[in-house]
């Protein structure tokens, strides 16, 4: 059932935030009559009225979020009651005209009911929406496989560049450590869009490539990997770094300095002593600017560590490990020999063909990413539903 719906998607037209197709998908997955779902909705309704009567203003965002949903639940209740009433009328009524009238009215009400249920599901979807960040870094690192892994990392860099372009999100490749034969050891893309995180985080993990590398002379098939990490960049990274914890190394440290020398060494290397992280920077001509950039990078690195530790901690308590930004999880295989891409997180038919199109961020890639987002949203909603039932 899943596959059928997804294949009918036209990925580019599926704009972010517009999940009408997803809603259709969900309405086949989530039965509103289902006991668990009704329990869940009832618990939300209860929560809404409780919060409103206690007038807890701290919960204002939650209240306003629930308000529309509860509205739908109430409307649905009334509609169901009316429909029951009409069905009864149709059954008991002797007069044929009156029967006809009841039938017609039933049609009107069922239409309204359908519309309400669609809205309700859409409202439910907003409950599971993940955290969003205004800016994030997508980092690609070549993994096992030497030069071949670096070539693959370069292909991933191009794939994501195209993907981001198609999505219309503002991005910039900020770092690119090239190798001689056209590969990339490591690359960073900074993405500035509130919508991007939900999509990109599902690309995080280990990507595996299977093919005969260009560098291979005897024609053997190799398996190599590249790792993708997606790290949010908060607007204002709240990490305090003590000056005393930093060892700043510049090449100008020797000699009399000042007017005595005119060297242009602008490279700065800072070592953060407590964590052992070291950052080098020579992106600008001026040394103080490079130091500033290096400190900013250091803060990002420290934030990344904190963030990943936090993600790992929350994951440990979660039932579902899927759809996380765990960088150690093998998520996808690109098999050039069989011309296929398989995403290991998608249960039914996680395989698509036409790898050439996929690897340049084409329709196949966008569709797969969209599907991951949809399934992930669905799973998170389902987790919420189960949680609320378990609490009872």
């Amino acid at each position, binding site marked *: 059932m899943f596959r059928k719906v997804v294949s009918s998607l036209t990925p580019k037209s599926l704009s972010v935030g517009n999940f009408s197709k997803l809603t259709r998908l969900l309405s086949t997955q989530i039965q509103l009559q289902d006991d668990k779902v009704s329990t869940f909705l009832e618990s939300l309704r209860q929560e809404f009225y409780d919060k409103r009567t206690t007038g807890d203003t701290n919960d204002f965002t939650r209240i306003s979020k629930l308000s529309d949903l509860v509205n739908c639940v109430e409307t649905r209740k009334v509609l169901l009651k009316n429909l029951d009433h009409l069905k009864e009328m149709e059954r008991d009524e002797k007069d044929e005209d009156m029967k006809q009238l009841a039938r017609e009215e039933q049609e009107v009400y069922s239409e309204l009911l359908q519309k309400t249920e669609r809205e309700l599901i859409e409202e439910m979807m907003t409950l599971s929406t993940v955290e969003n960040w205004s800016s994030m870094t997508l980092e690609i690192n070549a993994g096992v496989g030497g030069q071949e892994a670096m070539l693959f990392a370069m292909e991933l860099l191009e794939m994501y560049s195209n993907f981001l372009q198609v999505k219309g999100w503002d991005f910039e490749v900020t770092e690119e450590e090239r190798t001689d034969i056209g590969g990339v050891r490591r690359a960073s893309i900074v993405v500035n869009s509130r919508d991007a995180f939900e999509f990109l985080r599902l690309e995080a993990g280990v990507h595996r490539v299977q093919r005969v590398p260009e560098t291979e002379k005897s024609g053997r098939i190799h398996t190599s990997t590249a790792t993708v990490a997606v790290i949010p960049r908060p607007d204002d990274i709240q990490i305090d770094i003590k000056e005393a914890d930093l060892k700043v190394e510049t090449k100008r440290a020797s000699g009399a*300095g*000042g*007017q005595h020398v005119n060297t242009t060494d602008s*490279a700065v290397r800072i070592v953060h002593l407590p964590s052992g992280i070291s950052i080098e920077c020579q992106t600008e*001509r*001026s040394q103080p600017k490079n*130091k500033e950039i290096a400190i900013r990078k250091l803060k990002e690195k420290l934030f990344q560590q904190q963030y990943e530790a936090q993600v790992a901690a929350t994951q440990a308590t979660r039932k579902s490990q899927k759809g996380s930004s765990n960088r150690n999880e093998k998520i996808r295989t690109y098999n050039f020999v069989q011309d296929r891409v398989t995403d290991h997180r998608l249960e039914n038919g996680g395989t698509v063909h036409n790898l050439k199109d996929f690897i340049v961020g084409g329709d196949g890639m966008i569709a797969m990413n969209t599907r991951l987002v949809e399934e992930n949203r669905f799973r998170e909603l389902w987790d919420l539903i189960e949680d609320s039932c378990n609490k009872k």
Partner: protein
Amino acid sequence: MKRLFSSISYKLRTVIPKFEEKLKEIPKEDVNFTLKCLVSHILSKDFSSIKNLEDEQLDSKQLEHLERLVECRLARIPIQYIIKEWDFYSLKLKMVPSVFIPRPETEKLVSMILEENNVKERSFLEIGSGSGAISVSLLKNLLNFKGVAIERNKLAAELTLENAKALNVEDRLTVLNEKLSQDSLKGFVDKFEKFDFIVSNPPYIPSRQVFQLQPEIVLYENMNALNGGPDGLDVIKLILELSSSLLKPNGKLWLEVDSTHPPMIEEIIKNQYENRLIFEGVHKDFTGIDRFVEIKRN
């Protein structure tokens, strides 16, 4: 035929090793950095926008240009003069040969002054403005300030004004092409109202050291901007004298000096300006060397 020839473009990957080999002759040269400066200049690109030098392309004319500039560098012309610009305190300043090239240490002098001065409408005096780095970066950050810059070298005075114009602060900066000396001192004191602060990166290198400096400096920079006399204190002494009369009460004098100077300056103040100037302290530069002195008008 000729046009066809010049339309050929060269990936830098293939020609870089040749240039690198040549530039290695210069002691302590960061070869890759120098090439990046030159190539970004030739392509009129921002230095930071070039991620991989090897991926850039030059046509044959630009390649010739690069060859010429590498030769200039081999003749030890400072890179700042070759590309005719450099950065100071986040500003891009024009550089002209022989006018003193601002050093990165001096940026701290500016940031120390900025930390103390903020909103009120005020005025400052700079002695020996060179390219205008200090005055321009101060005015760029102190929007209610007006400044006076004295510069003895005509070329440098013109460059100060040009950089002030390029960064839109020329309406708040008066540049005087005059020399501070024992004779002209009195004239300055009479001419100006008192200033809220005075700043200078005066020539401070003791004369006998001047000609041992690296060729880039000795051959191409104006020695008047560096040579501070027998003990490096010639101009500093004049500035102390000037400041003792031209600073408002509690106004500060900020100086960049040689690392050996601070105790000597403290001594001079104690002996000659006891009731007029107070030696507030010494500050280190980013390499940890004593570099700046802070003095207050009593």
